[in-house]
């Protein structure tokens, strides 16, 4: 079974430029998460999808971040414009559901460096 796929793995951009990250979850997983992880810290939830619906985006900085999950499968996370403080690893995870705290399966992450 293929795991969670993310691309790109690395991205270097200049501040004020836009950037997008893509995630393909494990087949059959209805729930998809985007996390931000700063160096030496644990992942922080940005947004959670149940199928195509964003059910928890309370931690997403909506002035510059946006996300979509078309058809309830793949998802894209976008930052526009990027700021220096956005340099971090962006992790995508998926699970079969959230009602009972199901196990999350993580992708390798996209490491973003904003110059």
């Amino acid at each position, binding site marked *: 079974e293929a795991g969670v796929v993310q691309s790109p793995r690395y991205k270097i951009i200049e501040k004020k430029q836009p950037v997008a990250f893509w995630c393909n979850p494990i087949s059959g997983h209805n729930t998809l998460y985007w996390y931000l992880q700063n160096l030496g810290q644990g*992942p922080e939830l940005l947004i959670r999808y149940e199928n195509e619906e964003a059910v928890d985006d309370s931690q997403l900085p909506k002035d510059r971040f946006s996300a979509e999950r078309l058809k309830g499968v793949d998802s894209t996370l976008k930052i526009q414009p990027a700021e220096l403080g956005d340099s971090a690893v962006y*992790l995508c*995870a998926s699970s079969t559901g959230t*009602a009972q705290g199901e*196990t999350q399966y*993580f992708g390798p992450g996209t490491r973003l460096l904003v110059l």
Partner: protein
Amino acid sequence: SQQGEEDPQALSIQEGENATMNCSYKTSINNLQWYRQNSGRGLVHLILIRSNEREKHSGRLRVTLDTSKKSSSLLITASRAADTASYFCAPAGFNKFYFGSGTKLNVKP
């Protein structure tokens, strides 16, 4: 919040020794999960213990849960250099869970 807080922040041991990491949380949970993260990689699920369980084993891993103290511990027995990683606990409620800052384990060969 349900955020887990791991202790210690860093742990350095010799290969073959046991490693114990602790996790504390603040609210009631449905289950508690432990994850491992190797440098530059995503998190990998290690073990899940439900709120009505007190102890669980998986290979060289032993997890305990004390809901009265809102704490959990992860024991890795006979550690190997390959166990070097960061370990995160994630107390899980009914809609979400939060990761702490992790324990960074270094196993010296």
